[in-house]
């Protein structure tokens, strides 16, 4: 697609960078320049809780239309009511006739596919670890649509998403049986996003080294690919892509600073080396700080147009750490089964210090003619409604934001009937310009017309 820059090809990231010339400094910032000329891009942020919401009846709102009251679990969202699009307990996820194992709900949540579980497992544990979705997740599909030209097509981040079953607990999928695990360490994410690239555009001192190494690695990967079978060739291809993406990022060399640099400042994080103040891998103690640091990093990355799609997982399915911060010493997964009131308190805590915090950042960061939240589609959801029953009935979904003018917020939408949650995922895709009426292989009744996309 061509625009007023003339010969620049925005069709995909590689051809784009090639057509503007590899030596062009502002390569990471061209999208900002583009943004300057046009309206800010629309982004997607999905925040996903795990293990259910405790007492389901305390989660959902009462009322209808614009006159609604938040459920007590969500009362910390009160200041952001006008940005919210709430639903009643009318969504169902994967329905198999009863309780669904955690890895299957995690796999189904954003992919709307029937999961695959390996048949010849040695025990339930191995079977769970091998469970995978059989299609891509909605964020990845949307990222392919809108992530061109951003340095990072999407981000997959985790807050305390430590599980004895990391891959089987995955929510984000590049494709069938191809999970993308979330980055747990906010410092690693920060370094990846904000250092190595001087935001004034000066070249990193290791650019030349990295480029040479990566070229050699790519060549050797291609040679290996020719020797192996089809399954392994596919895996090597994914590695080649990962290397190529990294190669493009290090291709930037000196030049003009970003026009939008004023908006684009890396966030301040807690100290790296004082575990009595903060530790990214100790959610039992620091979940609040982890969530907030992760939100800060994600929002800053979007303000800098380093990415337009982010999924943030809070906790993980079958997480074993205890929510010490609310005075509970039992492992989170056990809490979800044995202590519904504590699980409700935990959910309220993550909503307050994670989701409400996210809405606060987005609604107070100026952008264009308004705030970032006007140009963002925000979603909060959870793999289960009733975590103890392992049930994807009454699946909680909260939408928020203006989605670039596409969404009208500040209301509850009720259908008067049950709907599959895939309908919401379809609606999300349509919000980002994809003309679809189905997704994955859960049967969809079509998009949610009340959202007007």
């Amino acid at each position, binding site marked *: 697609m061509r625009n007023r820059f003339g010969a620049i090809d925005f069709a995909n990231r590689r051809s784009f960078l090639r057509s503007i010339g590899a030596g062009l400094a502002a390569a990471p910032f061209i999208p900002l320049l583009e943004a300057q000329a046009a309206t800010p891009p629309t982004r997607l942020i999905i925040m996903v809780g795990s293990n259910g919401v405790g007492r389901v009846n305390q989660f959902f709102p009462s009322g209808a239309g614009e006159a609604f009251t938040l459920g007590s679990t969500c009362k910390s969202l009160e200041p952001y009511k006008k940005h919210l699009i709430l639903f009643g307990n009318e969504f169902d996820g994967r329905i198999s006739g009863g309780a669904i194992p955690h890895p299957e709900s995690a796999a189904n949540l954003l992919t709307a596919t029937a999961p695959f579980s390996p048949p010849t497992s040695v*025990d*339930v544990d191995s079977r769970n670890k091998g469970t995978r979705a059989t299609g891509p997740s909605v964020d990845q599909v949307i990222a392919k649509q809108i992530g061109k030209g951003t340095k990072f097509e999407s981000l997959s981040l985790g807050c305390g998403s430590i599980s004895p079953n990391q*891959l089987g607990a995955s929510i984000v999928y590049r494709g069938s049986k191809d999970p993308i695990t979330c980055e747990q360490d906010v410092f690693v994410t920060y370094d990846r996003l904000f250092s190595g690239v001087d935001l004034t555009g000066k070249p990193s001192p290791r650019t030349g080294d990295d480029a040479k190494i990566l070229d*050699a*690695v790519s060549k*050797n990967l291609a040679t290996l690919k020719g*020797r192996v079978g089809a399954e392994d060739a596919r895996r090597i291809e994914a590695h080649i892509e990962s290397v190529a993406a990294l190669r493009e990022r290090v291709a930037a060399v000196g030049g003009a600073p970003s026009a939008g640099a004023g908006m684009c400042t890396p966030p301040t994080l807690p100290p790296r080396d004082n575990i009595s103040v903060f530790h990214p891998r100790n959610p039992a103690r620091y979940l609040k700080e982890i969530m907030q640091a992760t939100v800060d990093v994600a929002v800053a990355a979007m303000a800098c147009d380093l990415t337009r799609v982010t999924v943030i997982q809070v906790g993980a399915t079958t997480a074993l750490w205890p929510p010490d911060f609310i005075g509970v010493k039992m492992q989170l997964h056990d809490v979800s089964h044995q202590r519904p009131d504590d699980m409700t308190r935990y959910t309220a805590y993550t909503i307050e210090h994670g989701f409400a915090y996210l809405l606060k950042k987005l609604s107070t960061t100026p952008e264009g003619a308004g705030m970032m939240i006007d140009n963002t589609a925000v979603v909060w959801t959870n793999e289960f409604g009733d975590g103890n029953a392992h049930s994807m009935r009454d699946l909680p979904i909260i939408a928020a934001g203006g989605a670039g003018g596409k969404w009208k917020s500040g209301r509850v939408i009720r259908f008067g009937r049950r709907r599959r949650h895939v309908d919401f995922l379809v609606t999300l895709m349509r919000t980002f310009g994809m003309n679809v009426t189905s997704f994955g292989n859960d049967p969809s009744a079509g998009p949610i017309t009340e959202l007007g996309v």
Partner: protein
Amino acid sequence: MRHEGVVARTQHGFRLNVALILVLAACGGAASPGEGEEGGSGGGEDDTGGDEPGPGGGKGGGDNPSSSCNLAEGAVATTMRRLTIKEYDNAVADLVGESGKPAAAALGEDESVGGFASNSLVTVAQGDAEKLASVARGVAERAVMRLGDVLKCGSGQGEEACALAFIDRFGKLAYRRKLTTEERDQLAQLYRDKAKTDGHVQGVRLVIEAALQMPQFLYRPVIGVKTSKSGINRLTGDEIASRLSFFLWASVPDEPLLAAAESGALDSADGVKTQAERMVKDGKFDRALESFSHQWLDLTHEPTKDTVRYPSFSPEVWEVGKASVTKFWSHVLRDTDGKLERLFGEPVAFVDAKIAPLYGMTSSATSLQKVSTDAKTRGGILTHPTLLTALAGTTESAPVRRGLFVRSRLLCQPPPPPPPDGVPPIPAESPSQTQRQRLEQHRKTPSCAACHAFFDPLGLSFEHYDAVGAYRDKEHGLEIDASGELTMTDVDGTFKDSTELIGRLKKSELVADCLSAQFFRFAVGRIESEGETCVIKSVTKSLFQRGYSLREALVSLATSDVFRFVTNP
């Protein structure tokens, strides 16, 4: 036993895997004729028509699979594995003396198959290339600070000559075979370009940093060469060397092993046996023991405990406990006859001041010391407090999980998963009930008992060990009933407690065979096929007659068809 086949009702009204029944009629015909001490295929006759002219055909156990099993039955593809986190860290320790375990700090969790880290299906995902690059950079930078040790240049050797010699030596160890001319030139070019602008040390740094990102380092393909049996390839000497070193050392091969590959010695079962026997005597064998035992016993995630109730537990105690497990395994396999009865019965433990309280002992030792233990309550690995801690909840023991562990991990009889429909929650913990009483519904409700009778009693036998593995006579002041019955095995019968249960298990050929299967899964990174099951069973059978020495089992598996050949379905 290893394949969940049709679920059928036996005459006892048990819902049970049909294969379990077949297990008892042990598959007797699997042993090949003329099978000697090596079990499996070593020393058997060559099939005629082996079309590999290569050197080192050896005196038998050569170019084609030799066991009477049909190796290709139910063939499963063997995909290429990527180095696991532990393997990466061990490799850089061996290659350049890196002691910091950088992969464990930076890389995401390994994919596991059958309970063992395998990375045989997972792809390098977004951000992984970056992480691998950043880890490689750190290792390389720290390595050149120890440059003298890393390069080992002779005095008077020019810098470039030294660097090229380094590339040959280091490259061979990192790529686990002799470099091709192109590979050598590629690394040499990286060195020269960098050395020209930034000097010799930086040039070497770049070579190390690059090599650690190359697929030749990160991946272990098993392609092999054709044999006269269609669908079956024999692994090349290089592939065997890698497979052996990651199996028995959890790391890269050393020079003698690579030399054996290059000379063709690893093309024969005898050649493999020679190397394997050397390797299990080497100090590096302990790393494989640690990796295997911690995964088999599922010790990879630190459990949370109510430390008010269990002040003797802490993260430090957990770490020491894991080290104590490794030391026990090393002791059994190195210092004793290493047989199954020892693994399950040896009355020895490795204890320091931190972990002593869990054993009901006191110690002022600052490092783990070998002590004798009471054979009745602390004999063998299954009574180790660290294992029993892992198989417990925050405040209570976990009898169901312990029972599942015995069935799945020790007997390779994994019960089917719980039903999808409305499983009622278990009653809350209570100080007026024992765990056995709490699980009463598992026995009373027929739809629960159908499955739970298979494993609950085995887990309840361990009720004398609490949530942190400490021994207790009573639970909340109540009598503990740890009795039960073992069924569906070759050593069935009643037991009074876990000591008696373990007494039965240590004489079980099923347990030995399961252990062989676990070794296979650890070595190859996937579940065995039907053909492979047959070979593994025959290896076990011949070893079991002499008490099943674990060390011999490892070597026999390494020399057997399942290790030296690969099927391509």
